[in-house]
Structure formats: C-alpha cells, structure tokens
C-alpha cells in the first residue's frame, strides 16, 4: 500500500552508549550482517512503501555509508525512494521528546509536498516483522485518525520508559500513561504511528503555534479525547535493542530456531541489507563450529561455539570463541580465548589473549581496537 514513511534514526542513542558512540541507533550492527534500520526498511519495502524519509541528528556517517543511494532496498527511485534529512542546526539534541517533534517540524515542508494519503512514523531500534499493510488496513477500516502499534504483555525493562495505553473492546485508545511499571501487564507503545498526512500537517502547525515540545504528550496524550486513536497489537517477533544487555540477549536469540524462522523464514519477506560482495565463509581443516550464526566472508580455523560472527571475521588456529558477538572484520589470531565478548568493527585481537565478560555485562571492545 502506498504511504509516506519517516524513520527516526537517533532516538535511543544514549541508552546504548557504547554502540552508538560512533553511529546512530538505526545503524547498530545486528544478526551477522544487518543494521537495525534494515528491518524497518525491509518491512516498509515489503509492504509496498517506496517513499521513505530518514531523520538523522548526529553520528550519521555510518548510516549514510550503509544506506548509500538506497538501491539495496530497491529505494533508489525517481519518484520517492530514500531521502535523508540531517538535522538543521537549531536542534536541541539533548531533549528526546522535543527532538522527535522538532525533527518532524523541521521537515514540515517535505511532508506537505508529498502526495501519499497516509504517513508511517517509526523508530528503528528493533528487529521485527511488522506488516504495514495490515496496520494501514486496520487504520482505514476503523476510520482512525491515528493508529499506534503496541505490544501487549508483562512490561519488561526495555519498554519501561515507553508510553502505554488503555484500550476499549474496539481497540480504541481511551487512556495512556507516559511510563510503564516493570512486571505489570501493559500495552506498550512501539513508537510506530500511522496517520493521515493532512492531519500530521495540522498537528505540526498547531505544535508550532502553541510552542509544544513533546510528540507523545502534546500530540498523542492530549488528543486522546479529541481524536480517534486506535491501537494495533503486534504479536510477532520483537527484538528491542536499547541496552548492552538486551543487545547481547537479542543477538543470541537468533541461535533459537523459532526466532530465526520468524525473522528470516518467509522467503517472500526478505530482510535486505547493504551488499558487500563477501566471498563465502571458509572452514579450515581443524575448524569446529557449534550452534553459531555466521555471515559470509569469514575464515574459520579455530573453534566457535554459541556465537554470532559478522562478515569478514577471522578466527585463528587454536582460538576458542564462546558466547560472543564479533562484528564485521574482527580478526582473532591464534590461540585467543573469548567468552562473553562483543567486539565492534575492525577489532584485532592478537595471539594468546584471553578475554571474558559475563552474560549480564559482556566485555565490549570498541571500534578499531587492537589488543
């Protein structure tokens, strides 16, 4: 279905500081060969949405490098396609709520000039398989002003700070809270909104006129009575990444067959990413690999157990890698031992190093580190 999509790429930067020191949340590497934004973009493209604007504030070199012209997502188009909006200089980077709204205000002209009837606003901080056609269909069928995707369940730590809703039997949102309590059942907002483009324009004009600051509070919460706001429950796989702990947990979740099948099993719903033309992965004569998710371009001579290897990782002879995530082009030489380690891009670990973290606090090595 045709719609205009706007992706927020920086929203949760500060909660996962190590990984976003040199990149946006949207370009956090995930699952061997992906960046988080690949999931949003693929969901959109698979639903037939081909006009996508991406709002970026800071640290966006890695995101720009990843996206290129958008052709790997089939978004290099004459009409629509991919548009990237770096922030104008009058941003207030420190205030999250204000930035979501002011980010939208800064591209008001773009939103006005588009032709699509509906707008999808989405964060890019999770791996999920939301069917936007289904969301748009419900939006239309209910005659909703705004449709918000939520997740029902016991609130876990990752959704603690998210808005949550009270719904009536007809899925209409009748009340909302700005924060949820861990352990209690909630309908947590996934920060995915569908609304009419004209309505968004009107809301933005109102926000400018009245000096509003918060998207959630001023545009959603304060309009619950006056607008028809509906909730769309998303029940599928949702790997939310907003801390180092759940970054580790969610990557490891891919070793589970059910999760893997849910994310990648549907051959008609592929997850696209930047093509790197890596050669296939080579396993040496002494390689020993168990329960691992491995991208192309790796060269494995040692042992790899319960781990995620990104593209171009080298595992030397006698090296044992357990419970670890090695990002793109990590090189481990001979007789290295790693347990609960996350290495960022281009990390080199020389021979006979022995590094270990633990499940709750994996040992993290920053980009381009050499040990």
């Amino acid at each position, binding site marked *: 279905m045709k719609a205009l999509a706007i992706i927020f790429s920086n929203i949760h930067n500060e909660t996962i500081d190590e990984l976003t020191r040199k990149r946006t949340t949207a370009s956090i590497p995930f699952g061997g060969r992906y960046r988080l934004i690949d999931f949003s973009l693929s969901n959109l493209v698979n639903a037939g949405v081909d006009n996508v604007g991406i709002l970026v504030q800071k640290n966006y070199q890695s995101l720009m490098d990843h996206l290129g012209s958008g052709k790997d997502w089939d978004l290099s188009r004459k009409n629509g396609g991919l548009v990237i909006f770096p922030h104008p200089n009058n941003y207030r980077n420190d205030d999250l709520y204000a930035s979501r709204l002011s980010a939208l205000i800064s591209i008001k002209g773009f939103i006005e000039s588009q032709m699509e009837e509906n707008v999808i606003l989405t964060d890019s901080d999770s791996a999920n398989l939301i069917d936007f056609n289904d969301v748009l269909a419900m939006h239309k069928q209910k005659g909703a002003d705004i449709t918000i995707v939520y997740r029902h369940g016991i609130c876990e730590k990752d959704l603690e700070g998210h808005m949550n809703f009270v719904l009536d039997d007809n899925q209409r949102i009748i009340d909302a809270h700005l924060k949820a309590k861990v352990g209690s059942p909630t309908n947590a907002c996934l920060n995915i909104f569908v609304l009419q483009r004209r309505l968004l324009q009107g809301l933005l004009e109102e926000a400018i006129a009245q000096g509003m600051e918060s998207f959630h509070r001023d545009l959603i919460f304060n309009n619950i009575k006056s607008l028809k706001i509906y909730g769309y429950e998303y029940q599928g796989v949702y790997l939310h990444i907003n801390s180092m702990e759940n970054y580790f947990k969610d990557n490891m979740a891919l070793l589970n067959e059910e999760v893997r099948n849910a994310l990648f099993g549907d051959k008609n719903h592929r997850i696209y990413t930047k093509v790197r*033309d890596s050669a*296939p992965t080579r396993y040496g*004569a002494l390689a020993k690999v168990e329960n*691992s998710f491995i*991208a192309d*371009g790796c060269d494995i001579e040692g042992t790899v157990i319960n781990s995620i290897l990104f593209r171009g990782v080298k595992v030397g002879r006698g090296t044992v890698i357990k419970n670890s995530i090695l990002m793109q082009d990590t090189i481990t030489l001979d007789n290295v031992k790693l347990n609960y380690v996350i290495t960022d891009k281009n990390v080199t670990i020389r021979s006979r190093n022995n590094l270990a973290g633990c499940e709750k606090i994996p040992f993290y090595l920053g980009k381009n580190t050499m040990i």
Partner: protein
Amino acid sequence: MYSQKKCIAMLLAGGQGSRLFALTNKIAKPAVSFGAKYRIIDFTLSNCVNSNIDTVGVLTQYQPLILNEYIGNGQPWDLDRTFGGVHILPPYQAKTGSQWYKGTANAIYQNLSFIENYNPEHVLVLSGDHIYKMDYNMMLNEHLKTNADCTIAVLEVPLEEASRFGIMNTDANNRILEFEEKPANPKSNLASMGIYIFKKEKLFKYLIEDDKDPTSQNDFGKNIIPKMLKDGQKMQAYPFRGYWKDVGTIQSLWEANQDLIGEEPAFDIYNPFWKIYSRNIGIEPQYISPSASLSNSLVTDGAKIEGTVINSIIGSSVEVKKGAIVKDSVIFANTIIGENAVIEYSIIDENVKIGAFAKIGKPKADQVKIAVVGRNVTIGDHVTILDGANIEEDVKNEGKEE
C-alpha cells in the same frame, strides 16, 4: 570523450555446454553455479569491472532466461551505466532474414552495429565459461605497446596436455608465427585462453570477410585467427600467469570448485582489491547447529548445517540435515540433503531434494566418476545413485530398502 570507449568487451555466453550434461539442461553454461555463491559468468564480468571496462555485450543463445534474469541491468557488477554498461545480445530478426548465431565469429558479426555504437578503438572478446582473475587493462596496454592487430592471451600448460588446446608458436618477442588447433605433436606449450583483443577495424574487416565465405565455420579459433595469420597481420601472444580453468566438463568444474578450499587454495577469491561480484538476494547468515561438523569447506549465506560436511562447497540456503554426510562434493543453492543421506564425490544442482538415507556417489578414488544430479530433481528416501550417474528426472524409492 566520455561517449567514445577505448575498449569494449564482447562476452560469448551462448554455448550449450553439453559436456556438463544435466547441469546445463535448462540453463546456459555461464549461468551454472560455482563456488557456493557465484555463477561462472561472475568471474568474467568482475574481471571486466575490475579492469575498468564498463561496456560489455553478452551474446546469448542457448537457454538464456536464467542468465538474462541473473544479469538484469548489471547493477551487482556496477554495470548499470548511463552510457555503456552490460547489454544482453540475443540473435534477432533482420530485414534480410533471421538466423541463429552460427559460431563465435558469427555471433559478433551479427552485432557489429552494437560495437559501432560505442565507436571503440579496440574490442575485447571473452568467453563466459572460464574461472580466472585477469586484469584486461594490462593486456590492453601490451596490445597498444606492440601495436598489434590482435593480441591473444596465452597460458603455459604442461606439454603433455598441450594437444587438448589451441597452441601458439611464437618468436622471442611473443609474436605469433603459427597457430595449431589441438595439435597431435605440439611445438610449444602456449595455449590460447580464448581471450582476444582486436583493433576494431581489423575485427570488422575479418568478420565481414568471414561472413561472405560459405565454407567457414564462423569460429574465431578455427577461421578468423588462422586467416589473419595467413594474411600476415601482427598477432601477439600475451602470456598470462595465474589461475585459469575452463570449466567445460563435470570433472573440471568439480576440480575448479575444489581449488577454492584446502590449506593453500589454488584460487583466491578473498582479495579485497579484486572482488568477485555476484547478484545477492537478502538471505540471512548461515546457521551451524550443535550437531554439525565442518572441515575444509566453503559455506555461504542461508545454509543450515546439521550434518557433516567435509571438503565440500555448499551453496546458499542449502540444508544438510542431521546425520547426513557430504564429502568431496559440490552442492548448489536451495538443495536439501535429507537426514542420514550420504553424498560422496558428487555435484548436486539447485533445488534438489535428496531423501533420507539416500546414497549418492561413491567415495572418491581412481576410476570412480563424479555423480551428477540435475536441477529440481527429487531423490526418494533410501535410494542409491551410483557414481558417474547423470540424473535428470526424479528417482523414487521402489519400496525396497537396500
């Protein structure tokens, strides 16, 4: 001037490749899978791009659909250009009638106007069925330096094998004195690699003359090159050192795949400055399960390995189920190897289903031949396929367990 090309490439991809039997039943030889994630033509196309040749005409004839779709607009090889890029050139209907490509020379003859369109000074003629990495620019430089009318890339082969190739006899300056197609008593060991650079005018002249000769077989090796030599044109040999393999037979295709693995692989595809490009679709990384065992193998995206893989090449989205053993084999994309099946010394094409407990091929040894299973074939449970077999149709279990 941007719109005039110094050198464009014409890639011959129309051959049937009948010596690959079941593998080329439904697809042209250049589109046959290779090295887990590639197709044979990727190597030639990547060579072109890596050598800064940005205009390539691909001459197709036999079963071109998969090849056409694969090449598409050339984007994976960076050959989607405003002026130039990759173009598929099938035979077409003309006012004077329509005819199939009668030979390699005739295929190019029928597309002279395509070449004319770019007005190049030189034309590079390539085959789409060789595995190698070569900088055509260095060959072009040599061609320009010697001011040759035609430069032919040659490879030193062992003298005892020389009688299988077209052999060039050259002088000290690499000028070709004589050309012999598959000589019984070869005088040199410089074999033609089927890679030619012609001055455009000379190429046009000889192709037009060749077309008028009713006795000609319209072939570069058999007609054009001997004719040019006879006329005393300046023909130079360009010696190439490096890996090169014609993958025209089952045996050589298997060997070339095996050359990618081992302690010191004979053929290196990991050079970041000479990438081999291929059409990638969004496939997730490979998953190696706790029950898997892998040794000396090449595995690519989407594969799910639960069994044992030894000395093998595993294509994308291949599943090797529990207890299955794949040894000394090449498995193309999307094939499923059932539980406890044993595959030895075989080539299994795309989209094949091998049933549980099936046995394909025999352990590799002298006298044992490679077993081949063609695309889209289903092999039933407990079925045994002998070595040297060429399976093109489904094989059902006849109810007897061996």
